[in-house]
């Protein structure tokens, strides 16, 4: 007990929020692997409040108000109870741990609420916000643990809906955690402290990121909209994003980028992801990999560019993911592209990039048609010495033959025309189809925009 409160005093005395938050961590520091155990054994249910009051009094000649002092006592009592549940859950047999983890979650939720009250009623200063971060972070983790643990019995009917909601039962605690995190979010957002330096608004992005992470896990990405709208509404009234720790900026930008990506707003997605990419710590390989997972498909659609080998070299996983497709796109190998897409489908779908990558086929087709165009060669020069001009009238059948390479059946002309029409419609190819003559008339200047011919 003493060691925890000594840490508290040190953290509080130095005004170091992160050091202070360590005292509320459910993971013991490496130097004291038994801290949780010892802490829990140092008192009991009957005396915990009195003991902590005294301990905190002994260790707090740091001049906090009576009100705040009481708040912290409450916090540590709640923490002590949560630690008790946590130790029990850790010891519970795997096959029957649902109840224990649920209790841990509930106790931790109580700790979170007490902390919340600390800020709203007991005047906890905003520099101690990292305590709230720790609470929120582990609230999410314990919720997931409780949801994942094997249940022992079927629960009773708890809602009066006409149909069952299978997802709601599966993620019961995590959904609850999302609501709690939302409360924390609002606690930070709605602080009216006029001095921004002392405002809880500095907690906004940490809690937002935590919430977004939870929504993604719950597959309820639509809910993020509310959060982002709230942030937008308070924008003028908040510290600028680039004043926050870089890690928070990167995470935030990453999530915004992915949300835009999923909404097919590739331009915005690219902007946000690029920002995240630029600010990401150079050694955070995993994070960089995540960013690239979405940034690469973005680039494919917005700028029709593919990643270089050098860019992918530190990421074997991404190489496996993107290289086969990239090769086929470059070569204009349609059937190879289809094969690669099918081969990687499970992975792509899991990362939600399948539907985007699928559109890469357009680029592959463009490259193939471009080859046909180049293979067509040049017109007979009308007069010697004139600049050579490519043949711009190409029979549909020639394109059709190229498209059919590698696949076992020949595509009928109507379908070839349809694909060509698409290329023209999407501005990947310039020209028009003269259907009666079964010919494509391509533009003399830049038949394939952006590719040099």
């Amino acid at each position, binding site marked *: 007990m003493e060691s925890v409160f000594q840490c508290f005093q040190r953290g509080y005395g130095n005004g170091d929020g992160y050091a202070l938050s360590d005292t509320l961590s459910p993971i013991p520091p490496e130097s004291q692997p038994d801290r949780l155990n010892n802490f829990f054994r140092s008192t009991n249910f009957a005396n915990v409040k009195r003991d902590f009051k005294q301990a905190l009094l002994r260790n707090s000649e740091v001049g906090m108000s009576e009100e705040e002092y009481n708040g912290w006592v409450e916090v540590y009592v709640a923490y002590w109870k949560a630690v008790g549940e946590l130790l029990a859950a850790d010891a519970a047999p795997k096959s029957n741990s649902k109840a224990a983890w649920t209790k841990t979650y509930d106790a931790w939720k109580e700790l979170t609420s007490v902390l919340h009250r600390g800020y709203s009623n007991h005047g906890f200063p905003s520099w101690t916000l990292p305590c709230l971060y720790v609470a929120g972070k582990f609230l999410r983790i314990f919720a997931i643990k409780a949801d994942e643990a094997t249940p022992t019995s079927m629960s009773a009917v708890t809602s*009066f*809906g006409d149909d*069952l909601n299978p997802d709601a039962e599966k993620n019961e605690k995590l959904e609850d955690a999302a609501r709690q995190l939302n409360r924390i979010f609002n606690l930070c957002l709605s602080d009216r402290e006029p001095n921004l330096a002392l405002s809880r608004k500095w907690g906004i992005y940490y809690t937002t990121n935590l919430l977004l992470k939870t929504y993604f896990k719950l597959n309820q990405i639509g809910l993020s909209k509310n959060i982002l709208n709230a942030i937008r509404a308070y924008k003028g009234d908040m510290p600028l994003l680039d004043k926050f720790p870089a890690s928070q900026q990167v995470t935030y930008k990453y999530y915004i980028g992915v949300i835009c990506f*999923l909404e097919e707003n590739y331009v915005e997605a690219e902007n946000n992801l690029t920002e995240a990419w630029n600010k990401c710590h150079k050694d955070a390989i995993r994070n960089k990999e995540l960013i690239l997972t979405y940034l690469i498909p973005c680039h494919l659609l917005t700028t029709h560019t593919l990643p270089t080998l050098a860019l992918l070299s530190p990421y074997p996983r991404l190489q496996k993911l993107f290289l086969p497709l990239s090769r086929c796109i470059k070569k204009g190998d349609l059937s190879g592209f289809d094969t690669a897409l099918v081969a990687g489908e499970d992975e792509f779908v899991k990362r939600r990039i399948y*539907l985007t990558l*699928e559109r890469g086929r357009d680029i592959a087709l463009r490259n193939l048609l471009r080859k046909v165009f180049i293979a067509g060669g040049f017109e007979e020069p009308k007069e010697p010495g004139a600049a050579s001009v490519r043949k711009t009238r190409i029979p549909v059948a020639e394109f059709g033959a190229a498209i059919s390479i590698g696949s076992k059946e020949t595509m009928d002309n109507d379908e070839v025309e349809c694909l060509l*029409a698409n290329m023209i419609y999407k501005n990947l190819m310039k020209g028009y189809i003269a259907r009666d003559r079964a010919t494509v008339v391509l533009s003399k200047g830049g038949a394939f925009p952006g590719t040099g011919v």
Partner: protein
Amino acid sequence: MNQWAPVSVVPPPPGTQDMYRYQPVSAEPAYHPVQARQTFNQTPAYTMVPQQPPPSLQLQPVQEPQKKKIDWPHSVRMYVQRSFDPANVLDDIPRSEMEAKLKETISRATDSQSLDSTDWDNLPLPQHMIRQERAHKAWQEESLKMQMASNGYINPAREQFITQKKRKSTEMGGGNAKENSPPWQRATNNRNGFEDRVTFPEKRQHLPDDSLKGTSKFQKNLEKRQRRFDGGYKSTYQAPNYASEPSSGPVVGTSQTLEKQYFRLTAPPIPSQVRPEAILRQTLDLLKKKWKKEGNYSYICDQFKSMRQDLTVQRIKNEFTVTVYEIHARIALEKGDLGEYNQCQTQLKALYAQNLGGKPFEFKAYRILYFIHTSNRTALNDVLADLTTAEKKEKAIKHALDVRSALALGNYHRFFRLYLDTPNMGAYLMDMFVVRERLAALANMCKAFKPDVPLRYVTEELGFESDGDAAQFIYDYQGQALLEEKEDGLRFLTGKAGQLFEAARAQAFRKVDIKGQI
């Protein structure tokens, strides 16, 4: 209320009970004579049921068997004790009637050897059972009338039904709620003793409006809103609620009526108003016949919703559940009721995940088509993630996946080939987005083809039935000037269309919102 002489189990003739307004002319008992429900294969609920138990046993004290056989479980004894506990006595239930019910309950349990398996601690007391049955009876009669009325079987009743309904929705401020409420509900106002000392959450709702005078305006408004929300029906449904104790597990239904109007639950369900699976199976057969014969969608939809509700509250999850949802989904599809369809589809997804049978391929294919219609990319991605390799090869699913990929790649040629060859009822779904895809294809053609194409080509590429249909479609979007008669037939002047179809396409692709239901 104690107009009944508690001398016999045979109920007094209906004439003695002024409260039975809905009483048919036939001499029916005022409540369900307590017949043993050991089989579900019983006579229709509205016919007379034989009386029991035999008179010789009638007036013997119920504790009697306890003395004869010493092996009554403790829980049963407690149950009997609770039944006679003065605190539990209900004034409008004569003691003799209660005793008979108690006796019947216990002997039924003994006969069916379920003495030990019955949860005596949570079983409603006999007096409560009786009360529920009375309520149930009234409910049945009313619902029968409503059914007949809504089916148009009897016109006068229908009119009555409609006016009644209308009155319900307009009477909110009026003081005649008492008049219109069903008889057994009015009885609740006369409750005394025990009832008055306990606050029941629903009780307030049964009070006529003038009793609210003491409450705040806010409270009154709240009440009013609540009632409005209930749509006038719910009070009928909910009233007997006070008698049922909220149980901790799924409900086991005891209702024997086939048809039941749908009400949205706002309180725990009452077993006597929930139909067990065997009855629901009969209901389904009935509904199938009715749907074929009458095709009254609003009636069918309502009935299916109440079936789904009964299945849900009883947590019945088996092949039958799947069938109910599947049939409802198909009917909703046919009628274009996407809201209802989507609810069924969501449930089906969960049910298929448990391998309960049914037609998962058919419905997974619909699901894909549905998400194409709603342009829900996130959901589409999830669907793809859920499909196994084997499923992707199934005809219907493969078709739906091909539709998806054809659209993703803008391959309208392939899309309309697939459209003309849709398995099962997928065409109902595809019809919903075929127009916008036609516009997209036309926008595409108008940019790519110059100077023109034969109208025949449009007809064939965009899956129209005839040139006439294709021309009509172009007309509908103000493209009449683009059609020109030439020596070899009608031509579609793609080169002159400009942005005409592009604009229409953009309009058609605006976010599809289908929260609204029919």
